[in-house]
């Protein structure tokens, strides 16, 4: 649910990074935080356990330029990927404008990727959203690992609606901003069509 604030002349959108545990969702937004100027980013909040596993969410507000006199502000959230935190994942999807699915390219995590997409679909439905209509970008993370599944195989298993696909190595920042730009663009185009 986009929030258009005429008083502050700004538009606020919510983007959620979704995916299986330890897939690199937090690493994505940490990289965005590190590589963004102070004038365009807010505070990075991480509600994590002592072992740096996301407990509730990570949050990073980031601002792009203005469109038609309105500042464009995006709130980036990650969800906890671990299966048993489903209640928290559901809460964070409330009011979402766009979803980035961060898939783990390792062969051993393919089942977890598939299960997480199924879970995303289910949780979106509970909020009244249809994954087929929500702006959505797919990222294949950890492409540098020797056990990474070939891209065509990942596309066949995980791509659901012709969404843009990006290869990434989030620890080194590869593909991180391409993914972000793509989802921002999809959200804004979606806004235009409404």
């Amino acid at each position, binding site marked *: *649910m*986009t*929030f*258009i*604030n*005429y*008083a*502050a002349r700004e*538009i*606020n959108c*919510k983007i959620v990074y979704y995916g299986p545990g330890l897939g690199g969702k937090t690493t994505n937004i940490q990289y965005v935080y590190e590589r963004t100027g102070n004038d365009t980013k*807010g*505070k990075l*909040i991480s*509600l994590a356990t002592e072992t740096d596993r996301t407990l*509730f*969410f990570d*949050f990073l*507000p980031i601002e*792009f*330029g203005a*469109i*038609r*006199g*309105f500042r*464009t502000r995006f*709130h980036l*959230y990650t969800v906890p990927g671990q299966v048993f935190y489903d*209640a*928290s994942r559901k*809460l*964070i999807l*409330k*009011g979402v404008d766009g979803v980035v699915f961060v898939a783990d390219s390792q062969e051993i995590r393919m089942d977890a990727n598939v299960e997480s997409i199924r879970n995303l679909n289910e949780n979106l439905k509970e*909020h*009244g*959203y*249809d994954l087929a*209509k*929500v702006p959505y970008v797919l990222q294949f993370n950890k492409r540098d690992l020797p056990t990474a599944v070939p891209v065509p195989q990942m596309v066949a298993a995980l791509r659901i609606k012709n969404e843009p696909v990006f290869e990434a190595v989030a620890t080194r920042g590869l593909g991180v901003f391409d993914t972000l*730009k793509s989802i*921002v*663009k999809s959200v*804004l*185009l979606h*806004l*235009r069509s*409404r």
Partner: protein
Amino acid sequence: MAVADLVLLEADHGRLVAVLERLRQDANAKLVFLLDKNGQHLALSGDLDAIDPTSLASLTAGNVAATDGLAKLIGEREFSILFHEGERDNLHINVVAGTAILLVLFDLRSSLGLVRLRVKKATADLAAILDDVVARSEARRAGFFGARSPFAEITDEDIDALFS
């Protein structure tokens, strides 16, 4: 999407701020802060000092969402009030009209009883304004509202320019 965008006009913002100002004075509070349930900051009265409003909004919304989840888990519809007591400052948080969250930050110069009393009146006033805002946002989505979104005619070039 299933949910209409929330559109806040300057006039709405002015009405909300007027209610918040009155509440802050009547409750002797340091800060009164209104946000929507998705964590978007709507309006405030008082001094933020070093508090980042965006962080405050997202953490408060997360707090309320988690508490809602707890309520449902034990079979309650909702916990309508949250109270956090600190050594110096306290937070009183309550849901307004099912769509927004009102946060009051106060210290020893006020009391929980006074804040609760004043919040009750202000909540009714805020709910009336927010109902108007939501109704208009819904009407806009359904196409009954004259003002078109400023984003209806953005071009691909406008979007690309954001990243240049």
